[in-house]
């Protein structure tokens, strides 16, 4: 190969490994993001207190307290007069969950006053402005000229120019608790009051209604269904890829079984897709890896639950998902939710049709399954692939307060044949030591110490390896400020490395061997 052609070939730089990133980057980024304010927010609210009070009163009126609209309309007019006009440059999209009353410039001639707990997302296109209001009280001032569409859980509101109030009650406190993660919930009713201009209210399976200034409408839940959420479509799309992967894995394993390679079937192993035998290689997924992957689909699980809450607003309970993770290193990983997964829900209304409830629960289960089966997990097992079973509990509740009620039997993430804190039993002392060194190099001192200590506890390990493991434990302990541990292992370090470890620990303020000469008098044996 000529030199020039050779230089067109990429260089394999994989041996030049970068250290593991420090932990907590995402946390620190999110803290900075929150400190900088959410997209589209304009800082502290300029919303008049009197206006906020009138909005709350309009909510009570929906609950039966008589109150004329005139006062509220007058307050709205005052509020509009003191609001700054929308400025140019408002983001074309954004989402805000207001922790306190606040104002958001939506652009396109629209301003929104959010009550505490209001949850809105908006998107501005050439066709107009679309706002999705999931929760809370929001007053919109829309001057046009393009249209404004407000999507609520129960109806859409269309207007070309109006001042109106949209209230989606209860949702500000509605939460879905999923393995400790909270997501948005669903409103039970929607109230729309128009103060200026007019708006058209469109409900599923009903004729549009025009609401004039000074009038209001209340939309109660009717059980009408809405279009499936995007996650369902996504899961369906992922399913196609998943099925192709399952077929590929089955093919590889069938070939392996036919040729007798790959170590042969493990005793008791379940049949692989396509009839082959699965090698039951112990997996090496950690709980954190599983949790991280599950967290990615939590919003989709919340959407599954929200779809069901459309029909059964008080239904909640526990799902014990039994997942089987099947992996082939060169192909990928598929996740299957087993049929014996448990879905235990309660809280259905007394007049609920049992057959309909079963159907809805079946849909819910199917949605959960499709979502969980779209999980992408890290590589698993050794060169022959692996298979592990995971039991993952979820608690679904209409409100955070009710989560404990439904979570009557809290259960941690349980895995069968998934090791977590302990090193895989197949690892040799050499491998453990290499892992400990790799961890030490990237300042993962916890893992470094754990692996190195395991080496030190093993029997029949050559002295040189034990001494090196002891050195790693001592360095890690000094780095973590654990003088006791450092001193405990120090005697087991090789004489050649002791001086340097002593120096390193002293630089961290730890004297591993009281009475030793000062660090400055020590000579680095490796230089």
């Amino acid at each position, binding site marked *: 190969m000529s030199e020039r052609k050779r230089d067109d070939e990429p260089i394999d730089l*994989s041996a030049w490994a970068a250290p593991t990133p420090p932990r907590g980057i995402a946390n620190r980024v*999110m803290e900075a993001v929150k400190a900088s304010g959410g997209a589209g927010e304009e800082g502290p609210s300029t919303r008049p207190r009197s206006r906020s009070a009138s909005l709350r009163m309009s909510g009570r009126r929906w609950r039966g307290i008589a109150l004329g609209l005139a006062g509220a309309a007058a307050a709205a007019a005052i509020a509009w007069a003191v609001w700054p006009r929308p400025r140019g440059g408002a983001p074309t999209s954004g989402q805000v969950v207001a922790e306190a009353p606040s104002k958001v410039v939506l652009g396109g001639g629209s301003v929104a006053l959010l009550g505490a707990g209001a949850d809105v997302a908006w998107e501005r296109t050439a066709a107009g402005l679309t706002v999705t209001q999931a929760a809370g009280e929001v007053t919109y001032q829309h001057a046009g000229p393009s249209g404004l569409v407000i999507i609520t859980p129960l109806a859409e509101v269309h207007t070309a120019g109006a001042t109106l109030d949209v209230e989606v009650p209860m949702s500000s406190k509605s939460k879905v608790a999923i393995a400790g993660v909270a997501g948005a919930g669903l409103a039970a009713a929607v109230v729309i009051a128009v103060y200026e201009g007019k708006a058209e209210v469109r409900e599923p399976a009903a004729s549009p209604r025009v609401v004039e200034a000074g009038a209001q409408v209340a939309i109660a839940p009717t059980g009408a269904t809405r279009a499936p959420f995007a996650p369902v479509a996504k899961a369906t799309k992922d399913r196609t890829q998943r099925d192709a992967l399952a077929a590929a894995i089955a093919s590889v394993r069938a070939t392996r079984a036919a040729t007798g390679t790959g170590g042969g079937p493990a005793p008791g192993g379940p049949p692989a897709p396509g009839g082959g035998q699965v090698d039951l290689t112990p997996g090496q997924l950690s709980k954190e890896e599983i949790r991280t992957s599950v967290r990615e689909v939590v919003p989709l699980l919340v959407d599954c639950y929200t779809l069901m809450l459309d029909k059964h607003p008080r239904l909640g309970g526990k799902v014990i998902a039994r997942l089987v993770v099947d992996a082939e290193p060169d192909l990928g990983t598929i996740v299957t939710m087993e049929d014996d997964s448990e879905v235990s829900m309660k809280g259905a209304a007394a007049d609920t049709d049992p057959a309909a409830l079963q159907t809805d629960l079946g849909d819910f289960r199917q949605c959960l399954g499709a979502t969980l089966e779209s999980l992408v997990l890290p590589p698993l097992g050794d060169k022959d692939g692996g298979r592990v079973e995971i039991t993952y509990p979820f608690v679904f509740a209409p409100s955070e307060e009710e989560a404990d009620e439904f979570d009557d039997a809290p259960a941690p993430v349980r895995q069968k044949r998934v090791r977590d804190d302990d090193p895989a039993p197949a690892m040799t002392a050499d491998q453990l030591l290499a892992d400990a060194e790799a961890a030490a190099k990237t300042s993962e001192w916890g893992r470094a110490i754990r692996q190195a200590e395991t080496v030190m506890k093993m029997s029949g390990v050559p002295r040189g390896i034990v001494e090196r493991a002891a050195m790693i434990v001592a360095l890690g302990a000094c780095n973590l400020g654990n003088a006791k541990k450092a001193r405990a292992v120090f005697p087991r370090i090789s004489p050649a490395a002791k001086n340097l470890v002593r120096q390193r620990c002293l630089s961290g303020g730890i004297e591993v061997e009281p009475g030793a000469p000062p660090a400055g008098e020590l000579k680095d044996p490796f230089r």
Partner: protein
Amino acid sequence: MVARAASAPRELDDLTLHRAQRGDHAAFRLLVERYERPVWELVWRLIAPAGLAARAEDLTQETFLRVYRALHGFDPAGPARLSTWIFTIASRLALNELRAGKAAARAIDIDAALDELIASVPAGGTPAREVARRQLGEALAAAVGALPAPARAVLVLSDVYELSHDEIAHALEIEVGTVKSRLSRARAAVRAQLDRGVQS
């Protein structure tokens, strides 16, 4: 020597991206978690050879803050993948850091010293394969680290993150022809240094 490092990340799904673009903090967090490792590694690879490894974390965070501020303008249907777009931001930040004259080597921190220590102690029972790989890694680090920063950026973006010439040109704001020539020379320089190491 054509196998690539598996550093090109799996892209974020469209739904989560859309939510993040709408300002959904939970979705943006997923985005950060998805790309934090490759971004950190990219930044580290670009600036660590100049003695700025300690700045990698700050630059990684700054990358994501800039991503957050500009995310609404990212077009998922456009020519750039999300990862490429993020790498562009990270690369420019890293090169700016190097250009800004902040390359004065900081004092070697304790972790770097420990790294050196662990590497210097005889390997004992460590498998020969691991030792060989470690030595190769050290040789590569030295060879790539010796490259001028702009050439190193081209090499890393191409051979680690598998960006195309056009994508690299856009990311580093240089001509495609410059990318090609720098990449060729960078590879030649690295190979030459590795060869010298083998001979010595």
